[in-house]
């Protein structure tokens, strides 16, 4: 320690020595001590010789008091310094404790930071994975929604198509009904016409029988006549021969006498110039030329002929030609002349014969006319047969159409069942109209789901933004953690420095203590070394003064560290809050993920249980199922047998035609064959009628059953007659959903008009109201029946 030696004092005037006031006891360490220097006797090297002896005595008193004062002051200063040291020590302890706490907190914060970082990394990974999953699920749901939309659009188009098909089917069914009615009417007409034809044919048969009998009798009569004529002709021939012989003999005689070349010339003229309608006259003419007439032969001739012959015998050629001309004229008159009964017996017989022949010819003409009429009837029958053939062909042509209609009806039934199943599958749908509403509701749900998807996407984006923010925060916290680490390192260094300072201070304190003890010991011993104690005190004070800025720096550092720690704590709290919020978001995302997974599972189950896309797949089933094959086989076999029968009939008719072409040859065989053929024809027509009846009955029953199943009513048709004799068709309808058998509707159909008939069921209040509304006001029986069907169906299902 530097001891400051005061300047040796000069001789003063009689001024008292300055009194150094002792500083008041206290802790004011900023006071400065005025250290009085010992007199020069203490340090002979420094004292001045001139002033020393006078001042020594005064100094001796002063120094003791000063020493006491200084001692007191020093002690006070020591105590203050000790107190300060203690305070500093306590502060150091506090600082060290604070530093320890801060260090521990730093460690805990570090651990928390690392834990938070790990959690952040895990959360980030999870979020990334969730994000990817969500994106995949969103994309899948997008695709599924698109597919569902496409399928719904296709379903809509299918709906529309099937509605159109249904309308077409209804129209075709109505047309089929009309056609069936027409066919029924035609059947009735055909049956009536067949009956009429039967009657006519029977009548014709009867007439033909009578005619045949009559013709047979006539033929027998003709035969007798012919025989008689033959006999008579034979007799005449004999007579004529005799006459001829007589005449020849006479002629030969006359020729030799009278006949000249002119008569020969006349004889050379061909008899063709003469109009000789009768062969008998030709004979007479030849007899005239080659022989003489007998009286009998002359008598047998007509008067005209006789005149001619006479003329020819007794006149020349010119007169012969005139006679021949007259003869021809007379012969023309023969048909109008009546026979003159010159000879009563033979001419009468001849006349009678001729009359009979005329009658025969007349009868034959009548028969021919009758045959003509029969032939015309046959032609009529042929035309009718052709008509029936054409009808049969039409019926056969319509049979496949019936098959087609049945097929279409089956298809419609299948479609209806499919639609019913679809209606059952779609919840909240009870009828066809609800499908549109349900589809619109589904579309709305789809749109809502799309909106939700959009919201989810927005959430996802928000989450991404939050993730970015958290990453930024994480980076910030990392930087802050780095800074905190650096600060902690600095603090450690400072702590080390503080420790070093503490150790130094403690050493100094120890030194001071030892010094104080020495001083105390010294004071106790003599108190002589005041200057050294003063120097020590001065040194302590200077060291304390030197430490004060350090202490101030330490205090400032502590304050800053405290602020930093508080800031870090706030940041950690905020990070904790963010972590909690993100954890909540992660949980919500996981919940959404679970919900989407369940939806995906539902969709997969729907796809797995049999749904298919109509664009790529179609469903086929065998028609020849076990339940249906037998009926179809039976119907097919029945139709085939009918075809064979009709073919046989056709062959029989063709044979009949071929046979009818040769009818003019043999009358007897022709008539009998004709009768047999007509009988066969009638039999075939009857059989055909029966077959048509059975076939149409089957078809009508199938059609009725189909109508019952399609429209929900069993229809029974009756034909009745009113009291005024007008025929009326009555239809009785019973709904398949009727609760009892009394629930029947009755309608009367007359010439295109349908009227409802009141009965016990329609007279009930509910039904009568509906009848008033639908039938009488709106004039729509289908609407009435449809409404009744729906109501009875609802009643049935509810019950």
């Amino acid at each position, binding site marked *: 320690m530097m001891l400051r030696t005061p300047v040796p004092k000069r001789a003063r005037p009689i001024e008292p020595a300055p009194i150094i006031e002792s500083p008041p006891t206290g802790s004011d360490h900023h006071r400065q001590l005025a250290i009085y220097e010992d007199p020069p006797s203490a340090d002979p090297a420094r004292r001045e010789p001139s002033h020393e002896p006078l001042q020594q005595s005064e100094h001796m008193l002063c120094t003791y008091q000063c020493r006491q004062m200084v001692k007191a002051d020093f002690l006070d200063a020591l105590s203050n310094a000790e107190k300060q040291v203690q305070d500093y020590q306590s502060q150091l302890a506090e600082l060290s404790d604070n530093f320890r706490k801060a260090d521990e907190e730093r460690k805990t914060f570090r651990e928390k930071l690392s834990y938070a970082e790990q959690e952040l990394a895990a959360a980030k990974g999870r979020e990334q994975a969730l994000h990817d999953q969500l994106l995949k699920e969103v994309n899948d749901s997008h695709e599924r929604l698109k597919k569902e939309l496409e399928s719904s659009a296709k379903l809509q188009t299918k709906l529309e198509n099937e509605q159109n098909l249904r309308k077409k089917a209804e129209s075709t069914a109505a047309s089929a009904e009309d056609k069936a009615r027409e066919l029924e009417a035609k059947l009735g007409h055909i049956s009536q016409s067949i009956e009429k034809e039967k009657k006519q044919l029977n009548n014709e048969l009867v007439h033909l029988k009578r005619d045949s009998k009559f013709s047979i009798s006539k033929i027998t009569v003709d035969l007798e006549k012919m025989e008689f004529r033959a006999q008579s002709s034979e007799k005449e021939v004999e007579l004529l021969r005799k006459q001829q012989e007589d005449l020849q003999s006479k002629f030969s005689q006359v020729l030799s006498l009278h006949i000249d070349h002119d008569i020969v010339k006349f004889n050379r003229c061909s008899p063709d110039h003469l109009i000789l309608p009768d062969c008998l006259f030709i004979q007479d003419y030849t007899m005239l030329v080659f022989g003489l007439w007998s009286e009998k032969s002359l008598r047998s001739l007509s008067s005209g002929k006789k005149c001619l012959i006479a003329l020819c015998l007794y006149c020349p050629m010119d007169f012969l030609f005139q006679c021949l001309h007259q003869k021809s004229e007379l012969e023309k008159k023969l048909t109008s002349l009546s026979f003159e009964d010159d000879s009563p017996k033979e001419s009468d017989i001849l006349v009678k014969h001729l009359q009979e022949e005329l009658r025969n010819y007349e009868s034959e003409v009548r028969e021919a006319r009758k045959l003509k009429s029969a032939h015309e009837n046959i032609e009529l029958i042929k035309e009718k047969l052709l008509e029936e053939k054409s009808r049969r062909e039409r019926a056969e042509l319509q049979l496949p159409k019936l098959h087609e209609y049945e097929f279409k009806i089956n298809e419609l039934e299948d479609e209806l069942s499919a639609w019913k199943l679809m209606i059952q599958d779609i919840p909240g749908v009870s009828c066809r109209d609800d499908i549109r509403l349900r589809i619109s509701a589904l579309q709305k749900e789809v749109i809502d789901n799309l909106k939700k998807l959009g919201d989810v996407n927005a959430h996802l984006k928000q989450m991404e933004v939050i993730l970015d923010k958290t990453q930024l925060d994480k980076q910030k916290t990392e930087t802050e953690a780095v800074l905190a680490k650096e600060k902690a390192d600095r603090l450690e260094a400072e702590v080390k420095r503080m420790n070093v300072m503490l150790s130094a201070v403690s050493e100094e304190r120890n030194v001071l203590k030892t010094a104080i003890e020495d001083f105390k010991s010294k004071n106790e011993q003599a108190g002589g070394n005041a200057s050294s104690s003063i120097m020590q005190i001065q040194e302590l004070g200077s060291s304390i003064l030197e430490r004060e800025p350090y202490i101030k720096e330490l205090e400032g550092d502590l304050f800053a560290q405290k602020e930093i720690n508080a800031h870090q704590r706030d940041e950690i709290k905020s990070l904790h809050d963010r972590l909690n919020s993100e954890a909540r978001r992660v949980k919500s995302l996981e919940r959404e993920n679970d919900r989407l997974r369940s939806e995906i599972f539902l969709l997969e189950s729907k796809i797995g249980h049999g749904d298919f896309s109509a664009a*790529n797949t179609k*469903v086929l089933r*065998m028609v020849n199922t076990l339940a249906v094959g037998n009926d179809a086989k039976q119907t097919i076999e029945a139709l085939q047998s009918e075809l064979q029968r009709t073919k046989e009939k056709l062959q029989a008719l063709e044979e009949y035609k071929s046979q009818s072409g040769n009818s003019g040859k043999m009358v007897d065989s022709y008539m009998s064959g004709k009768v047999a053929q007509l009988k066969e024809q009638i039999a075939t027509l009857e059989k055909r009628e029966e077959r048509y009846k059975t076939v149409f009955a089957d078809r009508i029953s199938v059609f009725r059953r189909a109508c019952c199943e399609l429209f929900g009513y069993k229809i029974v048709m009756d034909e009745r007659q009113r009291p005024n004799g007008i025929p009326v068709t009555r239809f009785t309808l019973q709904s398949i959903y009727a609760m009892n058998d009394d629930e029947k509707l009755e309608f009367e159909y007359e010439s295109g008009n349908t009227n409802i008939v009141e009965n016990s069921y329609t007279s009930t209040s509910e039904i009568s109201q509906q009848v008033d509304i639908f039938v009488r006001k709106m004039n729509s029986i289908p609407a009435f029946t449809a409404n009744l069907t729906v109501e009875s169906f609802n009643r049935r299902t509810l019950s």
Partner: protein
Amino acid sequence: MASKTAAKDIITLRGSAAIVSEFFGYAANSILYNRAVYPEESFARVKKYGLPMLLTKDEGVKSFISNLNAQLSEWLEAGKLQRVVLVIMSMNTGEVLERWNFSIETDNEVVEKGVSREKSDKEIMREIQAIMRQIASSITYLPCLDEQCVFDVLAYTDTDVAVPFTWMESSDAKLIANPQMVKLHSFDTKIHKVNTLVSYKNDEEELDDEE
């Protein structure tokens, strides 16, 4: 048909189609027997796939299944068949009670190019045997069919398939609402892979409805 070589058997498209259609015939018979669609006395025992199999003696059912198999074989050779479904329905109500779904995945390269594949016949038999065993054991979890039932077969084909005379296109796929599904084993001939799945009407819903 498959011809044996030293190690593996060569499988052609026609052979694979025959194997699959034959499998379906035996599977259908097994289902009809196990589900009591037809009485037990109408079935005869034969040996197939290393197991005692039951075939129906009813001529109508026999001819139905034989015609069906012929058509399925044709479609399989053309690569047009996607699925075959055997449907069991109630005779009275027509309600679908069970659907035995056989979905088929075809190797289009074989169909287009006519190449063949190699797989052991024994391996295929083993796989089919496993399915037959599962069909037989299905009575343990399938609900009892107390009422008289009938069956029908649906074929899911490509849309460009010409519909044969004895078949018709059906818009009704005969689905079951809210079914229970059980997936069975599958077998693979390397040309056709057949997956089997049975879906049935949930019996618990009926019990809940009754309650």
